[in-house]
């Protein structure tokens, strides 16, 4: 349906005219030129397009615009605040938790949403949650270590 969709993107109000059946991933990547959110599979199977909507991790490739109307959307471009990296971003650097970096945006967004709701996750809980994110370079061990280090440090919702 052609309509006006309003939402808050990385702290700023956005208003878009057009078909509200369009997928958020392509709106972000083309209309808004926020290309940090990646296409990997198009069916919600790999996690590369994960963003936060109303504090929850969602797959932007299967989320229609109408589902985010009036909500707060945070993408990888909005994770760092006031020029300061989010603790998870810093931990990914410190633990070498990326190689090619293509899955990294989705990993970070899913982990950030997870830590909002789970203050002191166990290693097993982290692994179980991250299971839906695919990395082909084989950084999983370091991603888990990075998330563990932040969970131990903040010990509560971020």
């Amino acid at each position: 349906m052609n309509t006006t969709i309003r939402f808050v993107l990385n702290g700023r109000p956005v208003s878009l005219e057009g078909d509200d059946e369009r997928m958020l991933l392509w709106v972000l990547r083309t209309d808004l030129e926020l290309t940090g959110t990646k296409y990997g599979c198009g069916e919600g199977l790999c996690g590369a397009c994960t963003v936060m909507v109303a504090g929850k991790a969602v797959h932007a490739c299967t989320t229609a615009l109408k589902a985010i109307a009036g909500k707060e959307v945070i993408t990888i471009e909005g994770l760092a605040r006031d020029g300061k990296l989010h603790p998870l971003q810093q931990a990914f650097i410190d633990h070498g938790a990326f190689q090619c970096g293509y899955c990294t945006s989705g990993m970070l967004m899913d982990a950030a949403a997870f830590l909002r709701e789970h203050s002191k996750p166990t290693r097993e809980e982290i692994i179980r949650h991250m299971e839906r994110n695919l990395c082909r370079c084989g950084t999983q061990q370091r991603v888990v270590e990075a998330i563990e280090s932040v969970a131990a440090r903040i010990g509560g919702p971020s």
Partner: protein
Amino acid sequence: MSAASGISRRSLFKAVGGGIVIFMGLDSLPGRAQDGRRIYPEDFNAYLVIGANGRVTVFSGKIEMGQGVLTSQAQMAAEELGVGLASIDMVLGDTDKCPWDMGTFGSLTTRMFGPALRAAAAQARKVLLTLAAGELKAGLAELVVHDGVVSVVTDPARKVSYGELSRGARITQVVDGKAVLRAASDFRVMGLSPQRLDAVEKVTGAAKFAADIRLPGMLYASILRPPAHGARRTLLDTSQAERMAGITLMSQPDLVAVLHSDPQLAALALARVKAQWSQPAAAVDTQSIFAHLVSNAGEAKSVASRGDSAGAQLRASQRFESRYAKGYVAHAAIEPHAALAHIENARATIWASTQTPFPTRDRVAKALQMDAGHVRVITPFLGGGFGGKSADAQAVEAARLAQLTGKPVQVAWSRSEEFFNDTFDPAAVVHITSGIDREGRISFWDYMVYGAGERGADAFYDIADLRIRSAGRSALDPTSASASLHPFAIGAWRAPGANMNVFAVESQIDLMASAAGLDPLAFRLKNLTDARMRRVLQAAADAFGYQPAVAPSGRGIGLACSIDAGTCVATLAELRVDPASGKIKVLRMACAQDMGLVVNPLGARMQMEGGLTMGLGYTLSEELRFRGGDILDRNFDSYQIPRFSWVPRITTLLVRNDELAPQGGGEPAITTTGAVIANAVFDATGARLYQLPMTPARVLRAIAEKKLQSRTP
């Protein structure tokens, strides 16, 4: 200083500005491929430029796909030049700016390009020191360099910076390979693990991949694909798609595409294109491929042969005959192939996710019927390559569509296209007949590989009587008569062929160890004099906390080793096999490798971990399902790659060997994964798995067969 001759083919000075420019001369370096062909450099191009501001720009035809060469190359240049890492700017994979390069694969960047880059940087240092000697009126021996500043040892106040020396100098110098490289004991930048240069970009989403490049007026293309390889189109009806607003249709005999400024509408339009196809009957499928390979691989070529096989077979006290197999495996990088092409004023620029920017430039030039000098390929970050981004059909498709439409065009493959168009790791079969004598020495070895090629097939054990043959490899040799052996395209896949060969070799070694009544480590050491490999085996065993026991011990501990890309690597693993489901759970792995001088230890260890983790895929789950040219797996729902819960604790260890030039790092570790898991499964259950991947069904079958055998008198 002599001006380099033969640079006129490109107005290089315009591109790079003033300052000291270091060129690579034609016959200056030992950069040669294994077959003796020259690989560096083919022409004169600048390797590095030192600007008046003291910043150093390094140009490399290599590309960054996660393996960390953006940083490690900067480290090599900084070290030899005598500047800090922060003074280096890297330009990678830009065919207009970088020295020619055949491509980023084969764990060759540090091994083959590294020496060229280090020599160029060392030469630059020599030039700068000579200039500084004149400027400071001092002898060369009196000078030291630190962070890009040359000073007199006895009078540090007398100093001059690289920037001051190069200002407006516009000096060219051809590398003669005579400048002495810095010794490992003096390293300040190499041998350390600084923060990766791409770190902040990659955690903030700022890093640009090919599909992230935007140009005004660009169109997104969706391309019509056949339902199967080998299918011919018999009917095409584009009328419905053409009725959509804003759609551009391009219809060529071999390329039908719909384009739109919104990629979703392009995809929707493609769904409205109607086509019919005639498909040849499927000759082979996932199950029948192995017999097909053996029957149709053609004449075998000899890889190695020594001794008197017939006599050795007679002397053997035990004889073993095995057949190993492995299906097709996809690259499945999380970034699908993408390219953006723009043609303006008879010049084409292509941003492409490619491991081979220069060959891609040439392919695009040919497709567009343009001079290669008018085509520029720029390579942004790659979201994984693993050998799969070398054919680059997407770059040619984007370029052709840009030429046809007169607009910038992006071609970004969907996941389904990515699976369909992949150049798969080939299915393969290995036959081994081998024997041991009463002392537990390998007395003969007869090895035949079909379809995987010979990498990793060469034996490093001490075997007097040996025959190794290979048939039917075409992935790296497109002219091979056996090119039609496979029902679809195959190609290089991280350590091409070695994953299959090492799986077979090290499984066979392991079953002989068990039959000899020796533990897997002792048997290997007994049959091995290679000092590097022995040291690495021992180091891996120590790191793992290995306690010797003859397999099957019931513990689920395995060992495997290989020599790949000049690197010796050994891995141990511990796992559990669920007897009810047949599911393998890997608990921990320890991996040691001797890769010679290590440029970036953390980067090297990440490659080892990454290789072992990726290897769990071809070992446990990955086997492409197909029926003739029809690719049945098209996404990550049915094609399972390693996930978080699969990954064990991995310990890595670099066995120091600074005397040896840097060897390969991206591939060696992954070659051990299949065998180390197979050997650990044997240790746990007494059942040996001869086929990859070791799916739960295959594990259960092997255990059932084992029970049946033990009941048979």
